[in-house]
């Protein structure tokens, strides 16, 4: 069933299989004084990679997440997601890009209260034009994948923190997006639950998902095969950790 969701319209760029490309990306906010949130950020994320973007608060992580997720446009530089140059796309096109090619996981989960775990996950496909029945079917499979097959009918807001984050992860993954962007996915969780979520992210990566985790925690970043360090809006380091 998921097969129909793995978008074969996501092309490879040249010989590389880059899902995400940032080329000399800058982002300035015209405040007083002006804020240079990102300064010449350049890196690729290849299909199937698990990358941590790590940096202290104020280093430009959130801005970078928004630009990678096409929720914001860079002041200059080029961003390509799943083969689509963001600068070529209208606002509507960006929505279309996000609906099928990008998945988001947020620190605060952002689940709808009063709705079941199943419907929260199914909402990940809300804007794809699939019918509710199909969305629910796929959501059930995804919840099973994150280990919540027994919680489908539970009110999402009544689940534990770890379970809620699993629901949010399932929602991000449900469309089989080309890339999943996770913003401090363990930020609101205790260390034990946090470890379990990190393990889940690794498992999901093992089964093929491309995931970028944004974190202020170097400890978490060290678990992942590749870590990109961010400081003052610029890439400080981009290294392979030799894990996996």
């Amino acid at each position, binding site marked *: 069933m998921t097969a129909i969701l793995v978008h074969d*319209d996501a092309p490879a760029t040249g010989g590389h299989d880059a899902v995400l490309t940032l080329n000399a990306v800058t982002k300035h906010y015209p405040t007083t004084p002006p804020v240079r949130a990102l300064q010449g950020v350049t890196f690729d994320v290849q299909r199937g990679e698990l990358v941590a973007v790590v940096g202290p608060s104020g280093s430009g992580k959130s801005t970078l997440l928004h630009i990678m997720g096409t929720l914001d446009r860079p002041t200059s530089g080029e961003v390509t997601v799943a*083969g689509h140059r963001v600068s070529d*796309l209208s606002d509507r096109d960006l*929505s279309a890009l996000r609906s099928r090619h990008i998945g988001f996981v947020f620190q605060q989960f952002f689940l709808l209260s009063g709705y079941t775990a199943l419907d929260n996950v199914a909402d990940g496909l*809300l*804007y*794809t*034009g699939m019918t*509710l029945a199909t969305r629910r079917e796929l959501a059930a499979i995804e919840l099973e994948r994150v280990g919540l097959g027994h919680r489908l009918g539970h009110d999402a807001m009544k689940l534990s923190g770890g379970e809620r984050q699993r629901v949010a992860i399932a929602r991000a993954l449900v469309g089989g997006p080309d890339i999943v962007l996770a913003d401090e996915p363990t930020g609101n969780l205790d260390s034990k639950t946090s470890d379990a979520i990190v393990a889940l992210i690794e498992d999901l990566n093992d089964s093929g998902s491309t995931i970028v985790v944004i974190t202020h925690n170097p400890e978490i970043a060290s678990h992942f095969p590749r870590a990109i360090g961010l400081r003052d809006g610029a890439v400080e380091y981009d290294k392979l950790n030799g894990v996996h």
Partner: protein
Amino acid sequence: MATMLTPSRLHSADVARTAGVGLRTRKLRAALSALGIMIGIAAMVGVLGLSESSKSDLLAQLDKLGTNLLTVQAGGGIGLGSGQLPAEAAEMVARIGPVEQTTTVSEVDANVYKNDLVPLGQTGGITVQAVDLNLMDTLAGSLDDGVFLNEASAAYPTTVLGSVAAERLGIAEVTGTQLVWLGDQWFTVVGVLDQFDLNPDLDRAALVGMVAAETYLDHDNVPTSVLVRADPDFVDDVMNVLAATANPENPEEVEVARPTDALEAREAADDAFTALFLGLGGVALLVGGVGIANVMVISVLERRSEIGLRRALGATKRHVAVQFLGEALLLAAIGGVGGVLLGYGVTTGYASLRGWSTLVPPIAIAGGIAAALLIGAIAGLYPAVRAARMSPTEALRSS
């Protein structure tokens, strides 16, 4: 290089689902804001329903009473006080072609008391009227109890009491032996009448026969009024010639009226109230609309993170706008339907209390719901646009 993007899409069924999110998660607030619209619509539907029901009651009443009854009365001539009709007025009126029936009433200069011990002057506002025997036919009146005057009893000291007069004289049912002190004589009460819809004066009268009035009360039987039933198709024509026919010498001393006009005038006065209450309902509706706009603006501010999330999930600005507009419409629709039901209920309750048949015009129901939706659309427009224009990064950052 890159293939075409499949545009974001939201099924219409999902539009309704997303519009319901706010209502589901904030039930009390939704109910309260729908209540404003509900009261407005209920007021309008109720007012229209009641006015329509009472109007249909009036039409039924007019149908029963007939609008072809005319009264000819001695009116106030110039400086003469209450004038008199000529003694032969009724006969002359009866000669008008389209006149089907006439009956005369002559006010007797006498008072009626419960008994001879009641001090003079405590008349209770009851008059004594000498009447023709065909009065009941002409007026389509009916008896509450006893019998009406007939050839025999009209010649003797007998009386039939109007409904109010009977009440004031303490006569609940007719036994045939009850006496009243009328013009210094005992008169036997033979009947009590039902209320007259068109001639309330007769409700406050003790009716005696012409012969008895002449014999026992020394009355000249000059008519004070002639009641006329005319051919329904020529009522206006008859009205035009009545004054001159009844009193050819002084037609200006004659007052001609159609009693049903009074009922219609009363209805017209009710219409004025209907307009007033409709206006008040409109104000309530407007206030309800402002309430919805207020709730929606707050909702948009509170649900920034949801808006950010939806944009991240692929919603376009339009999808967000449609969601919030849909929510306002849904609130208004709930209020509108609730209001129509409430208004209908109030109308049914009041109408059955008054013995009317319930009649809520379909236009009031359709118009009520349409008005609610219109108000909802207007109230939801600004919050919807505001939600749509919210930048997704701002929306996500604010949480």
